[in-house]
C-alpha cells in the first residue's frame, strides 16, 4: 500500500517519467509498432504455456484415481492375491482402507424387442461399502448383498442404452440394473466406466471356480506423503522370499506426466519466445533510432549537468514504460483471448483460471518487460557515453 503510494508519487512527480512518457508519445506510431512486437511475444509465450498446461490438466483429470492409491496385483507367474496376503497388508500402518477386487472379462447381452445389444465388460466383485469409496452413482442405488441386482458403468449404460430396471444377461443369468455410475475416466484400479458391479453371492454363482483369491487389492493410504513408505512395507512383508505381488503407486504416473508436460510446455514456450526475441530486436532498433534522433538533446542535457547515469536512467525508463505497457496489454489479451477460445471451442474455461495457467501469463508478462529492458540497454548505454560536444553539434 505504502509502496504503491510511493510509486505513484514517483511517477507523477518524476520528470524522468514525464520525459519518458512524452518521448514515447513523440513517435507514437513507432512506439505502437514496437509495443505490438512485445504484445505478440507476450501472447505467444503465455498462450503456449496455457495450452500446454490445459493439455496437462485435461489428461491428468481423465486419470481419475491418481493420488492416494496403491494397486497390489499378483506378480508375474502368480494367479491371485490370497486372503493370507490381504491379512499381511492389514498389518501395515497408515492405511485408510483395503479393497480386495475380483474381476472377470465378459460379454454381456441385452435384448430389446428384436435387437440384441452386446458389450464387452469387466464384471467386478467388490463389497458394497468398498465400492462406495471408489465410485459415485449417477442414477439409482447400489445393489443389496445377495441380490441379483447390479450397477453398471457409464459407458456400458450409454452404449447399450440401458435404463434403470432393465435386465442384462451374463451366460443366461439375468441381472437387474439398479444403478448407473458417473463417468470417471481411465483408471489404474478398476475400469469403472466399462464395469458391471454385483454382489459377491452373484459373482460366485457366475464364476464358481474363482474363489481362491483376488485379482488385485486396492490400498488407500491415510496420508499421501506416506504412500512410498506404505508401498515399501507391503512389499517387505509379502515379498520376503519370492516376488509374489507387485505394488503400483498411482502417483508415479503424476510425476512422469508432470515431466512430459513440462517438456511440452517448455517446447511450446520456446516457440513463443522466438517472437519475443524478434520483439526485442525491434525495441533495440526503435530505441537506437530515438537515441540518434535525440543526440542533440542528449548533448543539451549533458551541457546543463546530466551525468551518464542520468541519461542511462532516462532511456532505460523509457524502455521499461514500453515494456510494462505492452506486457500488460499482452497479458490482458492473452487471458481474454484464451477465455474466448476455450468458451467457443471447448466450452470449458476452468483450465484457464488455475494458478498454473496464471503463472504462465505472469511469466510472459515478465519476459516481455525483460525483453524491452534488454533491448533498451545498449541504446541507453550508447546515449550515456556520447561526448557532450559531439552530441551538441549533431544535426
Amino acid at each position, binding site marked *: 500500500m505504502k509502496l504503491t503510494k510511493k510509486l505513484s508519487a514517483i511517477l507523477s*512527480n*518524476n*520528470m*524522468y517519467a*514525464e*520525459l519518458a512518457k*512524452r*518521448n514515447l508519445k*513523440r513517435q507514437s506510431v513507432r512506439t505502437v509498432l514496437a509495443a505490438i512486437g512485445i504484445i505478440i511475444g507476450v501472447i505467444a509465450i503465455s498462450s503456449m504455456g496455457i495450452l500446454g498446461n490445459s493439455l496437462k490438466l485435461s489428461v491428468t483429470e481423465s486419470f481419475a484415481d491418481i493420488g492416494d492409491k496403491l494397486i497390489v496385483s499378483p506378480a508375474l507367474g502368480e494367479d491371485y492375491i490370497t486372503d493370507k496376503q490381504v491379512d499381511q497388508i492389514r498389518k501395515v500402518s497408515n492405511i485408510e482402507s483395503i479393497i480386495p477386487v475380483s474381476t472377470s472379462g465378459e460379454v454381456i447381452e441385452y435384448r430389446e424387442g428384436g435387437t440384441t445389444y452386446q458389450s464387452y465388460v469387466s464384471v467386478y466383485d467388490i463389497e458394497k461399502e468398498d465400492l462406495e469409496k471408489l465410485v459415485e452413482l449417477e442414477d439409482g442405488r447400489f445393489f443389496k448383498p445377495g441380490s441379483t441386482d447390479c450397477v453398471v458403468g457409464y459407458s456400458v449404460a450409454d452404449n447399450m442404452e440401458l435404463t434403470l430396471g432393465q435386465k442384462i444377461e451374463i451366460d443366461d443369468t439375468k441381472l437387474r440394473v439398479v444403478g448407473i455410475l458417473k463417468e470417471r475416466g481411465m483408471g489404474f484400479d478398476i475400469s469403472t466406466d466399462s464395469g458391471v458391479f454385483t454382489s459377491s453371492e452373484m459373482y460366485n454363482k457366475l464364476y464358481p471356480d474363482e474363489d481362491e483369491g483376488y485379482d488385485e487389492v486396492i490400498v488407500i493410504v491415510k496420508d499421501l506423503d506416506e504412500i512410498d513408505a506404505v508401498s515399501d512395507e507391503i512389499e517387505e512383508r509379502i515379498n520376503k522370499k519370492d516376488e509374489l505381488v507387485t505394488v503400483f503407486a498411482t502417483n508415479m504416473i503424476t510425476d512422469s506426466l508432470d515431466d512430459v508436460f513440462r517438456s511440452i510446455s517448455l517446447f511450446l514456450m520456446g516457440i513463443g519466445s522466438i517472437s519475443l526475441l524478434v520483439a526485442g530486436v525491434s525495441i533495440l532498433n526503435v530505441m537506437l533510432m530515438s537515441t540518434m534522433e535525440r543526440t*542533440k*538533446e542528449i548533448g*543539451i*542535457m*549533458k*551541457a*546543463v*549537468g*546530466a*551525468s*551518464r547515469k*542520468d541519461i542511462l536512467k532516462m532511456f532505460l525508463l523509457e524502455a521499461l514504460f514500453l515494456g510494462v505497457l505492452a506486457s500488460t496489454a499482452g497479458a490482458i489479451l492473452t487471458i481474454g483471448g484464451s477465455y474466448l477460445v476455450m468458451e467457443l471451442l471447448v466450452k470449458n474455461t476452468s483450465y484457464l483460471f488455475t494458478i498454473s495457467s496464471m503463472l504462465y501469463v505472469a511469466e510472459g508478462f515478465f519476459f516481455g518487460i525483460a525483453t524491452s529492458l534488454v533491448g533498451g540497454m545498449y541504446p541507453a548505454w550508447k546515449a550515456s557515453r556520447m561526448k*557532450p*560536444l559531439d552530441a*551538441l553539434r549533431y544535426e
Partner: protein
Amino acid sequence: MQQEKSSPDTARKKRIALSANSGKKAQKANHSTHPIVQLQNVKRIYTLGENKIYALNGVSFAIKKGDFVTIMGSSGSGKSTLLNMIGCLDLPSSGKVKVNNVDLSKLDDDGLTAIRRNNIGFIFQQFNLIPTLTALENVEIPMIFNGESPARRRKKALAMLKNADLPLEYANHKPNEMSGGQQQRVAIARALANNPPILLADEPTGNLDTKTGHNIMELLKELNAAGTTVIVVTHDPKLEEYAHTTIRIQDGEIIE
C-alpha cells in the same frame, strides 16, 4: 605565444547595477584570491588525416570573479573551442584549465558533470531548449540533475523565469510556441537554475534581431551586476560595449 589579461581596468564600461529586484542573492564579486577561470598554455589540436589543426595554440588568460568578458574573434578563430573548454564540454590537448581553482584535467566524467551542473550555466546561439518540454520544465531540468525536490524546483523555476523577464503566461508554452527572444530568456533562466557562479554564452544574440539582442545583453549585464561572472563569445563588435574586459582571438591565439 602567451598573453595574460589580469585586470579589467581597460574596460570601456564599468557599471555595477544595484539590482535589488533580481531576487537572486548577489555573490561577492571581488576580494577573491584566485581567478574564477584560468587557462595556462591551452592547446587544442584536431587531426584531420595527416594535418594537425590548431584550434587553440597556447592560450593563457585569467578571468576574475564578477567580470563581464567578451571573447571576440571571427568564425574559425577558436573562440567557441575556448568557451567549450571552460564549460567542460571539451578538454584541452595540452595545458591547464582551472575553473574555481579546480584543475579540470584531474577530473573524471562525474567530476566534469558536477562542474557543468553547479558552476557553469550555458547559453547557446540556437537556444537549445528541449522541444518536448514547456518553458518551466526546461528550466527545471538542471535542477532535476541536481536532485532538487519537485516542489522546490517548480517554485525556483518560476522565480528564474520571472528573473529573466519572461511573461508568466509563457511558462507553460513549448519552445516552438515562443519567439526567439523569449526562448533565449528561457535558456538564460535554465542556465541560472543551479545558481552557477559562471555564465557562458556562445553568440547569445546571433539568432535575434538587434532590439531583442540588446534586451538580452541588458539582462546579462543585470545578472553580472548581481554577481555572476559572464563570458560571452561573439564576432559582433557591438557586444563589446557591454563588457568590462575583451579578449580578442585569432587563429587560435590571443592577439589583445
